[in-house]
């Protein structure tokens, strides 16, 4: 396991370099002068020259990249033009909110998906199985931002059960109850599509496994059905499920940008969209980098989990 871990960590290096190059280049895509784009057409020549110097835009591109990446490696993501504060502080401030939202979405979609998938597989073609098939078709076709607005209209505006936006109540909140009340709608919105995908995959994998010979043997020797399904069935179905959960984690991190915008959830995604509209390139760069790094680490965790679930993987 240790050599596998070392190999897997070594593989991270080219990915991290690639991610940093893409993040750097992406904001140099614009055909014009980034300083002009950031400051707008009203900017004076002095302002433009100062910003160009500040961003190092007078240097060749590879020098700019090396300069930027060495600063990033030291934890210096530059200063936000809009907030006039270090980008790293601003991003880390909001990071917790994004993690809370994404982790809740992932937990909800994984647990919900597995429960729904196993129940559908145990009773194929039942009413629940059909309902879950229809829901999954709907889930894959529904825009996440629209679902968020619909849930907000129903549960916040019409029924008044849950708060419509933000992470905490403006007055008197701040405890776990307050957080949970604010979290329910965004987490459900974010989790919906992934939940249906995980449910369908769990169902098909479980159906496949439950028709295997060793399951028949387990039943024949008199094991209770719950033990057959969970110990012998689900445990072996976990590898494809973990794969899709890893992919969904990336989807959730991206979807969090839209969900945070709908519910004014104070996370990195919302900050990034505000940064784009304010043309604050260093801030946008910081946000993209932090979310991408999170995704890279999630993928690493998923790979390590594979090796744990299926020891054969380490030797490949």
């Amino acid at each position, binding site marked *: 396991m240790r050599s596998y871990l070392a190999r897997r960590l070594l593989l991270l290096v*080219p*990915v991290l370099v*690639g*991610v940093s*190059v*893409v*993040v750097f280049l*992406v*904001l*140099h*895509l*614009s055909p014009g002068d980034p300083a002009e*784009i950031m400051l707008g057409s009203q900017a004076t020549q002095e302002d433009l020259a100062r910003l160009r110097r500040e961003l190092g835009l007078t240097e060749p591109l590879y020098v700019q990249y090396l300069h930027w990446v060495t600063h990033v490696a030291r934890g210096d993501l530059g200063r936000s033009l809009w907030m006039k504060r270090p980008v790293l502080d601003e991003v880390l401030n909001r990071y917790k909110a994004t993690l809370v939202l994404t982790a809740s979405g992932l937990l909800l979609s994984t647990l919900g998906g597995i429960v729904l998938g196993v129940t559908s597989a145990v009773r194929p*073609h039942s009413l629940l199985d059909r309902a879950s098939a229809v829901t999954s*078709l*709907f889930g*894959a*076709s*529904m*825009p*996440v*931002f*629209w679902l968020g*607005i*619909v849930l*907000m*209209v129903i549960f916040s*505006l019409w029924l008044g059960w849950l708060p419509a936006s933000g992470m905490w109540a403006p007055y008197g909140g701040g405890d776990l109850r307050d957080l949970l009340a604010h979290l329910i709608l965004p987490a459900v919105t974010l989790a919906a599509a992934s939940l249906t995908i995980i449910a369908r995959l769990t169902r*098909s994998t479980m159906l496949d496994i439950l028709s295997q010979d060793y399951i028949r043997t387990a039943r024949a020797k008199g094991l209770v059905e719950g033990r057959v399904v969970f110990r012998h069935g689900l445990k072996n179905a976990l590898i494809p499920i973990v794969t899709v959960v890893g992919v969904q984690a*990336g*989807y959730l*991190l*991206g*979807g969090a*940008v*839209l969900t945070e*915008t*709908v519910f004014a959830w104070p996370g990195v995604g919302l900050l*990034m*969209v505000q*940064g*784009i*509209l304010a043309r604050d*390139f260093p801030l*946008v760069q910081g946000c*993209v980098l932090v*979310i*991408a790094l999170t*995704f*890279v680490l999630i*993928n690493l965790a998923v790979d390590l989990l594979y090796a744990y679930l299926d020891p054969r993987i380490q030797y490949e």
Partner: protein
Amino acid sequence: MNRGAGRNQLALLALFVLAGVVLAACLAPHLPLADPDAVDTSNRLRPPFTPGHLLGTDEFGRDLLSRLVWGARVSLLAGAATAAAAMLVGVVLGVLSGYYSGWPETVIMRLTDILMAFPYILLAIAIVAGLGPGLRNAMIAIAIVGFPIYTRLVRGIVLSVRGGEFVEAARALGSTDRLILVRHIVPQLLSPVIVAFSLDVGAKILATAGLSFLGLGTQPPTADWGSMLATGRQFVILSPHVVLLPGLAIFVIVLALNLVGDALRDFLDPRTYQ
């Protein structure tokens, strides 16, 4: 058997819906619709079934039915064009990296690895941030983040067929690489790529609508379903229909595309049919 027939009927219904929407979108200039950009402040936020405005009006008094139909042109075209661009680039790179080992393979596969190391929509947002907001740039961004899926799919198929006996036979008969690619390998790609494309158009419509919703895609006054949803959001308490209708339009069209795509997969690849 019954379930199969039921699914076919559903796919047929989806095909009719899709054909209807595409037809309406194509014929929009010739349909008896109000001007989608005509502002009428005395008729703001009218509910559906108001005389003269079947689906009501938006915050500027513009006819919602007309904006939805004109918006369909933008949304459908953006979805189909981005999926087509992603497919084209993805297939070419997939064929090259699958057929030629060595540096083309290494460069192409590392590029797709790096692009896939980002959450899909996040990278699209970042690219639009660099290029500047607007529908064209949003479409370029979505095509860029979309092509690696095709590259991986196609490379896998090319790798599995390039060592096949029919390819070796063609080579033994003196066929050039280009002839082998065009005559023997590309035909093998057709059905999986068509299926992937048909399922991808819906995903691309969702992605374009998402960028427009964030204010990074279509810019006012042009109507597309995502931007209609975004601007209508502020009036959701007073008039939920300005938000519910464009969202419903996206939902129905993507659902129809997914159903048709599923049916196409069952038809072209009977092995996946369960």
